């Protein structure tokens, strides 16, 4: 198994990103509590965001910086979810496909396994050796899972907005009926 394949780069990037975020979160957790002035600023900003709209719809949108920014964020979240679906579909459909990067003896590659890895985690490493392409495609899926996780708050807020709009629309429909 060649771990220097370029298709693994997003996977490495995702792990680096997660590691940096965990370190940053730990730093935020252990650093001294922020000052009263800063707390007042944050509280004021929160109040401004609450005052900027009448309902939860406006609050959700205002918390993201406005309608245009929120629309861009929702579009990005939808695209990230689509990417996850496309990568999973490629993984499932392309299991029997042969790619240009595959060596002619790719199917027999498991006969020369990496003994160190095999001893450590025998089942997983054997599967990786036997299904190199599936493994690399699954790393792309994992990358997009982390991407969708990053944009999950926007998806949650978009769902809240849709719910609010549905609640607004429902009474009028009932009145019409």
């Amino acid at each position: 198994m060649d771990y220097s394949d370029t298709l693994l780069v997003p996977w490495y990037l995702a792990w680096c990103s997660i590691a940096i975020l965990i370190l940053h979160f730990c730093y935020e957790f252990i650093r001294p509590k922020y000052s009263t002035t800063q707390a007042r600023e944050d509280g004021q900003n929160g109040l401004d965001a609450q005052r900027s709209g009448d309902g939860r719809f406006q609050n959700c949108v205002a918390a993201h910086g406005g309608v245009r920014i929120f629309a861009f964020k929702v579009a990005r979240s939808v695209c990230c979810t689509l990417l996850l679906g496309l990568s999973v579909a490629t993984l499932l459909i392309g299991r029997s496909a042969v790619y240009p990067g595959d060596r002619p003896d790719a199917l027999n590659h498991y006969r020369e396994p990496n003994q160190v890895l095999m001893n450590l985690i025998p089942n997983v490493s054997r599967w990786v050796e036997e299904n190199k392409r599936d493994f690399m495609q699954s790393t792309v899926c994992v990358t997009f899972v982390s991407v969708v996780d990053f944009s999950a708050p926007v998806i949650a807020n978009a769902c809240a907005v849709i719910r609010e709009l549905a609640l607004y629309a429902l009474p009028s429909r009932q009145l019409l009926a």
Partner: protein
Amino acid sequence: MLCLRANSSPERSKSSGSPTSSWLPIHLNCLLLGTFVVYCIRDLYPLCTYQLPPLDAPTSRDPILVYLLWTTISILFVVAIVIPLGMPRAYIPINPDDPSEVPAPEQVCSIFSFFIWSFLDPMVFLAYRNSHLTRDQLPILADSNKAVNLRAKIFPVSDITYLLRTPIFMFYVRRTAS
């Protein structure tokens, strides 16, 4: 946990540091851009050559997989290039106690618009249609360029006692004295 923290308001002032939530879009954009670059190197660059095939397009010419590949690359282009460059920026006041009522276009325009200065297009077209622009029709001054904020930013640095306290200056004094 990260999702919950990312719900905080983006109107946080610059002086209050950089919380984890403000790092999430940067991580997301870097991750997506890295993935797009990888797909460009693997699948788009070979199309510019005569003999190299795209590495992720199957040799069996399976149409569904080919469609999936180019759809993935198209969406990656949108989400990694178009959206980060075209998304307007949230207004972050320099001084949270004195924010602008109407933020300057320079501060809220998209990065692409900032690069090509297209946020000034409305004023240019207005000047093209009129013989004279009044003072009210000019774009407002960004609060990052206001004298009050510039003074608050520059004066502590230009103060001689600040320079004396910097380690680089002390290092230079010690080297010169020795």
